């Protein structure tokens, strides 16, 4: 069976000449929880955004579910994007909008473009939005403004928004980097549930190796845009660690 996501020779050169990705290739299977690790600046965010073309890759291909994402038309790209949920380090909620509006935004790829412009969503989408909020324990905050929530709560709204998309794949870019360890685990557990119980593939970039060990099925590591490791979390021994994080790096925890 073909993998759900195939990334081949992906290269991203930014306008200023920075080579953020340099020939990265890997596969992601259905139901897989893939962690992406690497130093800051190694290209993790760039990689995740190239998958749904929030950033245009310079070279290489991304094939998702048998569709070539890299050459899809704008129209097709939207169809692809709506099945790929995304969670961000800084939550990326629309601060001045209500929580429920933020969650409903997850349906934008599905709903009627004209009706949505006047903030009309089908009743079942609205019901679903409340359901998702309930699921992340924020039902009572639905009508608060997003910026009235704490960081952990905001990230849960972010998760709910991603789930609204009925995603087959979730891209999570350091979803817990700005949260404390307890909150981090609670968010990671949501991802775990999505992954294990609903069979959604997850690609998640992480900074903490203990989180990688705890949640990931497989790990890829980037260093200056080059894929330097691919394997299970257990395979990261000291030698690999130094290769990924550099000679001077110390293992903590």
């Amino acid at each position, binding site marked *: 069976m073909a993998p759900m996501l195939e990334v081949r020779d992906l290269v991203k050169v930014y306008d200023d000449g920075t080579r953020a990705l340099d020939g990265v290739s890997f596969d992601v299977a259905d139901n897989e929880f893939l962690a992406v690790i690497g130093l800051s600046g190694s290209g993790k965010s760039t990689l995740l955004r190239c998958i749904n073309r929030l950033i245009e890759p310079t070279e290489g291909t991304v094939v998702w579910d048998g569709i070539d994402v890299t050459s899809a038309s704008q129209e097709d790209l939207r169809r692809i994007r709506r099945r790929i949920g995304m969670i961000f380090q800084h939550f990326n909620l*629309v601060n001045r909008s209500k929580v429920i509006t933020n969650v409903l935004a997850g349906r934008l790829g599905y709903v009627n473009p*004209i009706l949505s412009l006047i903030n009309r969503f089908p009743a079942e989408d609205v019901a679903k939005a409340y359901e998702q909020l309930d699921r992340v324990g924020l039902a009572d905050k639905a009508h608060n403004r997003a910026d009235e929530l704490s960081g952990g709560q905001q990230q849960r709204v972010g998760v709910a928004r991603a789930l609204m998309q009925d995603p087959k794949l979730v891209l999570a870019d350091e979803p817990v980097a700005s949260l404390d360890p307890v909150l981090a685990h609670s968010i990671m557990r949501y991802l775990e549930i999505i992954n294990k119980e609903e069979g959604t593939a997850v690609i998640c970039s992480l900074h903490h190796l203990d989180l990688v060990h705890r949640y990931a099925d497989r790990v890829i590591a980037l260093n200056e845009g080059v894929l330097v490791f691919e394997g299970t979390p257990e395979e990261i021994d000291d030698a690999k660690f130094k290769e990924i994080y550099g000679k001077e790096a110390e293992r903590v925890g």
Partner: protein
Amino acid sequence: MADDRVPAGPPEKKKRGWRRSLAIAVAIVAAFVLYAIAFQTTDVSLDQLQSETRREQLFKILRALARPDLIHYDQEDLVVDAPILVPCNPAVELPATSGPGTGPTLTVEPSCASPGDIVTVIGSGFRADVDVSLKFVPDSEFDVTLPLDRVQTSAEGTFTLSFEVPERTSDNPQFVRAVTSIPIGSWSNRVEVWTDTNLNGVRDPSALPASDQPLSASPLPLPEFTIRDPGGVALIDENGNPIELLSWGGAFEAQSGSTAGLASTDIGVDPFSVGEGQSVQRTGRGAVPEDFAWVGPAPASFGELNAGQEPFPEAIRSRVFINELAFGDSPEVEVAGPPGSDLTNLTLIFFDGEDGKQYKSVKLGDTIELSPRLSDNAINTWDRIVETVMLAFLATTVGTLLAVPLSFIAARNLMRDVKVPLVNLGLAILGIPVGLAVGVQIARWARQVALLVEGNWVLDVVALVAVLLAIWRGAIWAVDVDEDATRTIVDRIARPTVMFLAAVGFFVAQYLSADLLMIVGTATTRAIGFIGNFLFTMGEIIQTITTPMAALVGAGIVAQLGSRLGYLIRTKLPRSTVKILEFPIAAAAGATVAVFIGAVVEWFGQFGNPVATVYVPAAIGAVYGLYLAFRALKNEAVGTGIVIYYIARTVFNALRSIEPLVMVIVFVVWVGIGPFAGSLALALHTTAALAKLYSEQVESISSGPLEAIRATGATRMQTIVYAVVPQIVPPYISFTMYRWDINVRMSTIIGFAGGGGIGFLLQQNINLLQYRQAAAQMLAIAIVVASMDYLSSRLRERFV
């Protein structure tokens, strides 16, 4: 390395220091020269500042500014003539001095003279500190006067003036005339408004107020004249017969007028020795006026019955009488009588107690006139200031409405990612002229359809509702993308067709609503003129813009189709074929754009040279297209977004840097002098300025939400509505308010260039040296600008 440099350091540093000093010296000299030139060219001159006449001018203006022309006193000329004989002729008898009563008097000494002699005029009994203009009234069958001089009366109301007798001789007496103006509004300030129907806030003196009492009273503030003590006052009825004659400081027998021979009744109290708010008044119980006894000083009750006054209802009938007197700072008399009594032709005559002669008569019907009223200038100023504010309001609204959408295409962060493959772009551009033509045709069809019902408002409404419903349903169905469903033939053909019909329907709806507006406008014009006019004009505007709108929409749709075609070509044909096809397409598109630019240049320049404006641009455009196609061999997408961004920014910056005051000149040429030209100029400037400010706000929004919304598969419009709009609402409101402030300021002076508003009036008055009038306008500007400023800052606080 560091060691190497240390020894080399000092000399170099020294050298640099020397250069620096030289540079500074040169800069100082240059600055010196620059300021000298600036002084020279701007005519800086202390002489002008110090010159006596200039200063006098300045003070004159400043004084005028301190007394803006806002209030107007109705004035009455007081004319006093004194006879003079030129030359002396003992055979002619001089007539008496003529004037109103025995108030102001004028004598000439000597009372006869030869031309060229110097004679003296003496005036007394005039109002204090007023201007008197003196004239010589020659014996002539025409109504002519020769101006002699102007004087100001002393604090006692007197003046003396010597003049040379003019070369006018006659056997008849001639006259020296003194004319003063009495502001007849100025002495009615104390009028109490209690039966007021007069908009000026002045009691109507023609009747006593209605009352449930048998007696009613009316205060009558007196004109400014010196009331004599001892003295008296008589109330005379409409037939000239005295009703009563009261006196103070003693009794006398009237010597003149219809009252001659009548003995006065001393009231026994002193109407002069009353304090603020006091009077002498009649009180007690009674049936005829004489029953009420005079008391006082007591608290004044002008306009009401006096304290302790109890009239018997049956007795007081058809008698009006003097009920209260106060000759303090603002003399006032109260007349009482049966409620509703007509006062129109009653007269008060004042007597001198010494000689029993009357010196002043006050006719009740017309002596108490208007209080100060707004001058014509004030009314004009008000009209213009309303115009000014409305002008700013319209310009701000229109500018904001246009600037909001434009700001999105001038925002780098939204446009940066708009990249289109060259084939798509080329075909889209080639589609534009076709689209324009199609759009115009569609508008024509829509017009035809609308004409079926036009002129009948019922049909209009029905058709409009039907069409709008159909468009709404149709459009929603047509754009609804089914979840991942493979597109059937229905989708491929029916949906675009419905979309197309919806577009046609939209323009039909525009024509229908335009027609409806015009019908309703015509109907309401009779009832409420300006509303009807507004509706009608809106209808006309909609009708006028429908064709260009349709052309633009058509261009957009066909361009979109071209782009689609490009996408099909790229995905269905082999890559090399696409690359080859790209060359002719790009060349043609480049030529199209260039020819369009050439046409614009031709329109402006009227060169009439097709080689320069058609062929050469076409060639250049084609070559540029080929160059792009060549480049596209490597890099598919062309950054159209960024190009549009740069064009928009350049246009906005260019427009913004032209002052509205200059723009209005162009519009005045186009639509004529007036507020319309001003609104257009301000609206254009506002659009450009706000679009720039807004787009900077769009650029500064946080990109996170934008990214997140895009990642959900949202369209560009959805991204703007869900990620951009919530972030920009507060700054947009704030900038609109800021712009509103600027527009109010601008609209006050845009009239200088013919753009309407108060500036026009101001400039006119300044040019006519009417500084007091101009002062009113300046005051109005200051008030409006300050209050709008305050208002907008309060609103800004609320919203942001």
